C-alpha cells in the first residue's frame, strides 16, 4: 500500500500547475542574462544555476536609507515559489478521492509519510526545472555548456567574493545547489507539518517570516541563511564543514516529519479540508 500511495503522489508532481515553476525559472534566469550584458560576456550553464539562489551579504542598517537592506527579491521568490506551489496538495487530498485513498491506506502515518516523500521529490523536480531553464538560457546566449566552468558573471553575482585559489567547484556546487535544495526541502516539510496545526495561509506566513528574519540575522542557525549561496560560501570559507551546515536543515526535516506524523495521527481529518 505504501508503494502505491507514493506512486499516486508522485504522479501529481507532473501536474500542469507545476509547469509554472519552469516559466518562473525562465524569467528569473533573465536576471543573470542582464548581468552578463553589463559585463559583455556569455554566462556558462553553471553561472545561470548559481545566480538563482545566490542571495546577498547582510547589509548594515542605515536609517537615512531604510531600503538599502530590502530582502533579496530574486532569492526570496525562488524559495517561496516552491512553498507556494506545494501548499495546497496535501490538504486538498483530504477530500474526495484522496479521502477514499486515506481510508483504504489503513494508516494516517503512511499517508503522511507518502506526502513527505512527495514533498522532497517536488523540490527535486523544482531544482531540475532550474537546471533545465539554465540550459535553455545557455544555449540562447551561446555560453559554455558546462557545470564546471564559471565566468565573471558568477563572481559579480557573488559580489566578487569568489577567490579561485580558495573556492573550488565543489564548494560552489554545495553553496549554490546542495544547501539551497536541503533548505527548500526542509522548509517545505516544515510548512506541510505546520499546515496540520494551523491554517495553510498562516503556515506560509511563518515560513516567509523565517526567511525574512534569516536575511536580517546572519547566522547559520537561522535556516534561511543556508539557502543563500553567498552566505554558505562564506561559512565554508570561514571553516564550517559541509556536515555541520547540513545538520541544521536535517534537524528541521526530522522535527517536521515527527511533529507532522504525531499531529496527523491525532487530527480529525474531516475538519481539515481547507
Amino acid at each position, binding site marked *: 500500500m505504501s508503494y502505491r500511495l507514493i506512486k499516486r503522489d508522485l504522479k501529481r508532481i507532473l501536474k500542469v500547475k507545476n509547469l509554472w515553476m519552469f516559466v*518562473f525559472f525562465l*524569467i*528569473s534566469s*533573465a*536576471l543573470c542574462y*542582464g*548581468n552578463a*550584458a553589463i559585463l559583455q560576456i556569455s554566462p556558462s550553464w553553471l553561472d545561470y544555476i548559481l545566480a538563482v539562489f545566490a542571495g546577498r551579504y547582510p547589509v548594515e*542598517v542605515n*536609517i*537615512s*536609507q*531604510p*531600503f538599502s537592506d*530590502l*530582502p533579496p*527579491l*530574486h532569492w*526570496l*521568490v525562488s524559495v*517561496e515559489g516552491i512553498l*507556494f506551489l506545494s*501548499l*495546497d496538495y496535501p*490538504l*486538498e487530498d483530504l477530500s474526495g478521492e484522496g479521502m477514499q485513498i486515506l481510508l483504504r491506506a489503513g494508516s494516517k502515518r503512511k499517508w503522511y509519510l507518502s506526502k513527505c516523500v512527495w514533498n522532497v521529490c517536488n523540490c527535486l523536480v523544482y531544482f531540475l526545472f532550474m537546471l533545465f531553464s539554465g540550459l535553455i538560457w545557455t544555449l540562447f546566449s551561446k555560453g559554455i555548456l558546462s557545470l564546471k566552468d564559471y565566468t565573471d558573471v558568477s563572481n559579480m553575482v557573488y559580489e566578487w567574493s569568489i577567490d579561485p585559489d580558495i573556492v573550488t567547484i565543489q564548494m560552489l556546487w554545495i553553496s549554490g545547489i546542495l544547501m539551497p535544495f536541503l533548505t527548500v526541502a526542509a522548509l517545505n516539510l516544515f510548512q506541510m507539518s505546520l499546515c496540520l496545526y494551523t*491554517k*495553510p*495561509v*498562516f503556515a*506560509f*506566513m511563518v515560513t*516567509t*517570516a523565517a526567511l*525574512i*528574519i534569516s536575511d*536580517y*540575522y546572519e547566522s547559520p542557525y537561522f535556516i534561511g541563511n543556508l539557502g543563500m549561496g553567498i552566505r554558505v560560501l562564506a561559512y565554508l570559507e570561514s571553516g564550517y564543514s559541509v556536515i555541520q551546515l547540513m545538520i541544521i536543515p536535517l534537524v528541521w526535516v526530522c522535527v517536521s516529519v515527527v511533529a507532522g506524523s504525531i499531529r496527523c495521527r491525532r487530527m480529525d481529518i474531516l475538519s481539515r479540508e*481547507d
Partner: protein
Amino acid sequence: MSVFIRVLKVELWKALHNPMFWTAILISAGLSVLSSFESYQMVQELKERIIRSPFQNYQGASLFLFLLCVAAINSSSRLFIALWAILAAIPYGWSFCREKKTGSYLQEMIRSGRTNYFRAKYIAVFVSGGLTTALPFLLNLMVNALFCPYVLPDPAAGTYPVMNGWFLSKLFYTHPWSWALIWIGMAFVIGGVTAGLCLVPGSTIRFATLVILFPYALFYLLDVLLNAFVYNRMVVSTMFSPAYLIMAVPPSANPPWLVFTEIIVICLLGIAAGRYWIIRHEL
C-alpha cells in the same frame, strides 16, 4: 431599506465578525507594536547621545523618522512590508471562493440580485482589507508619539529618506502630522484594493488559501518581471513595483500620479474580474 443596503450590512457583518479578520488584525497590530518597541530602544540610545552632545539636535530621533511607513529599519517592520498583501487578503478575501465552493452564495444572490451581491461583496472585502493595513500604521503613529520627540523635519538635516519626487514630500517637511494621516488613509485604500484582487481568480482556484495568497504572489511576480526586464536594463528612478505600494517611502520615488495610477489599475482589475465571475459568469 433597499436590498443593496441589507446585503451590504450582511456582508460587512460577516467580514468584520469572523476569526480570520481578528487574527489578521492581531498579527498586523502585533508587528506594529513590536516595531515601535524596537524603535523605542533605538530612540532611547539616540536621546542619550543627543543630550550629551553640545548641539541638542533632535532631528535624528524625530517621530516622523521612525514611522512604520517611512523607515523599514527593524525586523518587525520588514516583516510587515513583506506580508502586508497577505494580511490584507486574510480577513475576507477568501469569502467568494469559499461561498462558491459550498454553494451558499446562490442563496444570497437569488435574494439580492447579482449586481447587489457583487457590490456588497467588493465593499466588504475592501473595508476588511483596508482596516488590516491602515490600523497598524495608525497604532504605530500613536505608540511612537509616546516616546519620540515631535520635531518638524528639516530637509537640510539629511536624515530623512523622503526626497523630492516622493509622495507629498513637501507636505512631509511642512505639515508632517497631516502627511502621516493622509498616508494612513492611503494605506486603507491600498489594502482595500489589494484585498479586492482576491476576486480575480474567481472559481478557477478551489483552495481558499491560494486565493488569499494570490495578490501577494502577483505582486512579487510583477516585481521579478520588472527587475528582469526593466530595472536591470535601464536606470529607473520611480518605483513601479506594487509590492512596496504600501510604503510611503519606497526604494525609489513614488510620485502621487504613480501611486494613484497603480491604485486605480489594481481596483479596476478587481472590479472587472469580480463583475465577470459574479455578474456575467454562468452560475
